[in-house]
């Protein structure tokens, strides 16, 4: 049994335009101290998948099935009051936009202490002391001064560190980070990624990292799930994934990066394109969702949906034509 087991998770939303199939039959597990990346492009369902764990999806329009077990406890059927305790103390979330996630009218120290006082019943003084420790943990210099400052006095990178400090205040077992560095500059991003690595190393926190950036995946994740149109296209340890991508979508994403073209032969450089568009989430056709854009498309891709098949230790890919393992990205 893993720390977190997600099995056959399917999430849909009822909208005015019809039923949106956001996530379909996703299964993955997360071990203690592991950094798992959920990656893919806009609308692939990576955020919905992750937000289903702390049940942060709009309750009235969401249709969810499957199982989410955290430390053996089923979360999908947990009563809301118990779930509220799980959120924050066992699973917590860092969002993309640090400015809108912090309350502008309170000091950062107060906001961290508030979480501690609510979840851990610490005294005011103890909470304050812990807040300073937490800011230090996330690499904020002069934390004793910083706790007196308001969010607008901090830079974007510092705000994101404060958000991480709040998220790990109660030592959650699972930390979900939704594009935590997307709004940040590269020189700042590197430091924030180091904070996540550090948290994992020092506290053993398991992290689900939602990102569109394969560079971030390569940098910090242990394992990655590549999602396409609501389903897992491929899942593998990161070194394996980048060395031997088996799904044509994964391969396409890697070849589409400008860095890939630059690394290639000099002269007339071109990026590999993935033609066409993501299929509408209002439909859920029987065949492979990627077939219309796929260079390896055959007749069987339309006839049936390719299941996730094992291609090596812990390496799964949902493709009838997974190519040769030696094919380089």
């Amino acid at each position, binding site marked *: 049994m893993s720390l977190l087991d997600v099995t056959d998770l399917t999430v849909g939303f009822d*909208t005015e335009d019809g039923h949106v199939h956001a996530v379909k039959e996703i299964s993955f597990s997360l071990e203690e101290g592991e950094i798992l990346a959920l990656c893919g492009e806009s609308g692939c369902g990576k955020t919905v998948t992750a937000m289903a764990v702390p049940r942060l999806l709009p309750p009235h329009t969401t249709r969810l099935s499957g199982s989410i077990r955290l430390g053996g406890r089923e979360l999908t059927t947990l009563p809301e009051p118990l779930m509220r305790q799980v959120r924050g103390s066992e699973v917590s979330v860092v969002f993309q936009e640090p400015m809108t996630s912090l309350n502008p009218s309170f000091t950062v120290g107060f906001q961290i202490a508030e979480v501690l006082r609510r979840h851990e019943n610490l005294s005011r003084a103890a909470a304050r002391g812990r807040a300073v420790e937490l800011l230090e943990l996330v690499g904020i210099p002069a934390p004793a001064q910083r706790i007196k400052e308001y969010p607008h006095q901090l830079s974007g990178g510092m705000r994101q560190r404060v958000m991480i400090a709040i998220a790990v205040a109660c030592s959650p077992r699972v930390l979900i980070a939704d594009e935590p560095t997307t709004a940040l500059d590269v020189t700042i991003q590197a430091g924030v990624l180091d904070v996540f690595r550090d948290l994992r190393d020092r506290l053993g926190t398991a992290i689900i990292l939602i990102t569109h950036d394969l560079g971030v995946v390569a940098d910090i994740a242990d394992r990655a799930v590549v999602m396409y149109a609501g389903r897992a296209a491929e899942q593998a340890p990161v070194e394996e994934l980048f060395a031997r991508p088996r799904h044509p979508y994964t391969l396409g994403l890697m070849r589409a990066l400008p860095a890939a073209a630059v690394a290639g032969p000099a002269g007339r450089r071109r990026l590999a394109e993935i033609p066409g568009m993501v299929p509408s*989430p209002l439909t859920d056709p029987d065949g492979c969702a990627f077939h219309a854009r796929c260079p390896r498309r055959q007749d069987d891709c339309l006839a049936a949906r390719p299941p996730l098949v094992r291609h090596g230790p812990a390496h799964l890919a949902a493709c009838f034509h997974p190519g040769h393992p030696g094919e380089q990205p």
Partner: protein
Amino acid sequence: MADQMTVPVGAVPAAGPAERRRRLWRRFRRRPMPMTGLVLVAAFLLLALVGPLVTGDPVTQDYAATLAPPSAAHPMGTDDLGRDALARIASGARISLQAGVLSTLVAMAAGIPIGLLAGFYRRWLDPLVGRLVDVTLAFPFLVFAVGLAAIIGPSLTGVVLALGFAQLPAVIRITRGEVLAIKEMDYVSAAIADGATDGHILLRYVLPNCAGPLIVQATVAIPTAIIGEATLSFLGLGVQPPTPSWGVMLTVAQQYLDVAPWLAIWPGVLIALATLGFNLLGDGLRDVLDPRSGL
């Protein structure tokens, strides 16, 4: 990256103008509240435009029946002078519609250009317009209506001007706010970079993109003006007897509340329904008119 929680843009099927209108209508039709509003407004328009043609003369007196309760001859009863209440309601609807629409037109005609220019030439014109709006707001429109009545005599024209004036600040504010937001859009920068003149940008880029909120504002302004007309006429500052207006009818009705309550009920209920109808319609239009709402 776009928000993953929403339907990606690629999912919106393409459409020509006709299909676009159909889809707009389909989305509108599916909502119960705006549809109720549309039905109420349509009924009001029908009453105002066709009603007076079929209900007969609103000033003809039936001396045999004064303060008569509703009957076959007079479906809504008669008033103290034996005039048919249904005919007066229908004619009153026409007055209400005129007051509502004309005063809103007055407010829009004056307010939109002022708001456009104030928002666009923020540095020099805006402070001036800001003061003007403040002064207007500080000036109770009843005082203005009394003044107008004193100058041109109590009349529908006075009502329209007074109500138009009262609605002016709201129109200026909404227009100005929209302009400030639209001015920051890259498509306006693109137009400037193309060498577009200010006039072209205002008319082709800024104004059309303010249209949605302004149409919604109009649907709020019309019922406000209907109530305003009734109020002014009720106070004797508006439409004068014997011309029937819902406000005038209420003035008369209050003297006979105990013997002929229907005289107060008909105009009262109709004012409420017409107002409700426009407001519901406005809410629905607000949701549907935004071109980015995925339609």
